[in-house]
């Protein structure tokens, strides 16, 4: 069930890896590192809140901040999981196929992932609408003009705009696309070695 197979690139580990593969791997390590740091922070925040409540001084902003940090950590590490091929898939069909057919299927699945990531990137672009926003006189004017309130949305207890947390979505769209591309490159190489 869990797609724990080594990525096809692993078989070629002795060959020098491409720039794209190395970039994707380095990026994945950075994403996991950041996600781990964020996990540590929200873990510490929750403990602080338990202690605060015990001493009669609960911190109202902790829960909202902890939840938002968790979401950011989740998207960062979810992008890295594409590089490690750890997202859960039903592998009944590829397990039954010949290595060559399985490799073609894997390429097809990764291409579908790429299409989705590109679409997500486009949706995030349309949502943030940076060109219209920077052309508008002010962010208020942008919202009035487009009825897109992305830059106005407040947080409940934190006193900062929600958009600072939403920024993880464009980051996710870009890095996940990159990881998809690296996987597709590895799939193609893998197919090439099988064909030989």
């Amino acid at each position, binding site marked *: 069930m869990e797609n724990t197979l080594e990525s096809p690139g692993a078989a070629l580990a002795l060959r020098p890896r491409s720039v794209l593969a190395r970039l994707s791997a380095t990026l994945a390590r950075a994403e996991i590192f950041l*996600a781990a740091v964020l996990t540590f922070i929200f*873990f510490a925040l929750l*403990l602080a809140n338990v202690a605060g409540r015990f001493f009669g001084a609960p911190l109202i902003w902790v829960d909202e901040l902890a*939840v938002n940090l968790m979401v950011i950590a989740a998207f960062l590490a979810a992008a890295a999981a594409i590089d490690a091929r750890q997202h859960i898939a039903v592998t009944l069909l590829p397990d039954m196929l010949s290595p060559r057919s399985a490799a073609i299927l894997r390429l097809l699945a990764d291409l579908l*992932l790429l299409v989705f990531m590109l679409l997500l990137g486009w949706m995030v672009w349309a949502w943030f609408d940076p060109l219209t926003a920077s052309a508008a006189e002010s962010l208020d004017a942008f919202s009035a003009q487009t009825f897109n309130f992305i830059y106005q949305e407040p947080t409940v207890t934190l006193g900062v705009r929600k958009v600072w947390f939403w920024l993880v979505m464009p980051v996710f769209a870009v890095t996940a696309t990159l990881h998809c591309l690296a996987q597709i490159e590895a799939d193609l190489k893998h197919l090439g070695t099988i064909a030989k």
Partner: protein
Amino acid sequence: MIVGGSFIGLVVLSVPIAFVLAICALIYIFVSGNTVLLLSFPQQLFGGLENYGLLSLPLFILLGEFMNVGGIGRRLMALAMAILGSVKGGLAYVNLGANMMMAAILGSTVAQITIMSRLAVPEMEKQGYPRDVSVAITAAGGLLAPIIPPSMLFIIYGVIAQLPIGDLFIAGIVPGILIFVAFLAVIGWLGKKHDFPRSESLPFRARLHAIADALPAALIPATIIGTILGGIAHPTESAALGSIATILVGAFVYRELKFRDILMAFASAARASAIVMFLIATATVFSWVITFENVPAQVAAAMQAMTASPLVFMLMLNVLLLLIGMVTDPIPAIILIVPVMLPVATGVYGIDPVFFGVVVCVNLTLGLLTPPVGTGLFTAALMGGVKAERLAVLLLPFFVAVLAVILLMVCFPQTVTFLPGVL
């Protein structure tokens, strides 16, 4: 139709399930012409995870990572040994008892099988147990992890069904104990069949020593269950408190947890929880689609045409869950089934949502140990060096035991609903 067809097609093509859900949601948006929804798609993805209860998921995974190295599992096993004394098949019962205690700390079968295979299987083999039977008992013991609180599956069900996770945890206690008792009976029977060796009774001083040594370790499950049962802390906070207790006991009492391990645990927890959380995020977007397409109402109408009895509905549901459990793992199965079946269960048949969740989760855990797709089965086979096919056969009596408990729960829902009602 188009959405349903692409859904099945994409799953079969081995596209990761999280992406299948997201892609199908997009397909629906395009087919139905509601393209205005595209603008809020990324916001929905983000919003799908903004849930306080969900914080307990990475925290319990974190706790499991600390457990991996903290020397706590070994002490709990020694504790079970010291308590039991000289019994035929003693070590097999000790294995199950340690699994029960571990289940009160861990919420994932795979995590528990990983830890217990290393601890229990070599010890049992040394004392003359057949290796494959030892692995089977350890794998079965892992089933207790997601049923005895804390439980990964109950957290995910709670988030999707919008129920208090604490209530679900408490509701899992009686079914967990029933399964434990049923497994004790299975081990008793196996002991006669395979002539298990008798465990030696430890001298009084050694017993006392083992109990004293295990006391700090035993404090961890006590902290978690105690704070949840007593209503002192939200499950999220009890996970944080349990983690800090594990760090303190592992690093300062047993001195086996190193600073480096602690850092690595955060990275592993971030990695493992992100996979589940991304699945939940895309499922939230997907449940939009299900609501728009009115799938639950269609299923409800179809079910109503078949039966009016809640009992028959639950029996049919359990057969369906067993089949689904065989081809997928419990987490994606919950994410796919609950949004469709829960409204039918509560709306048409008046079934209690907490009871429904416990039955669904217990049933789906069986899928972890059934071929052709069973992460727990393959983990145990790999760790224990036994063929998965052989292991699946040896696990059959344990499956029968769990099925008996499920049948008992379905016929007498009070077994599940009683405890949350009292507390």
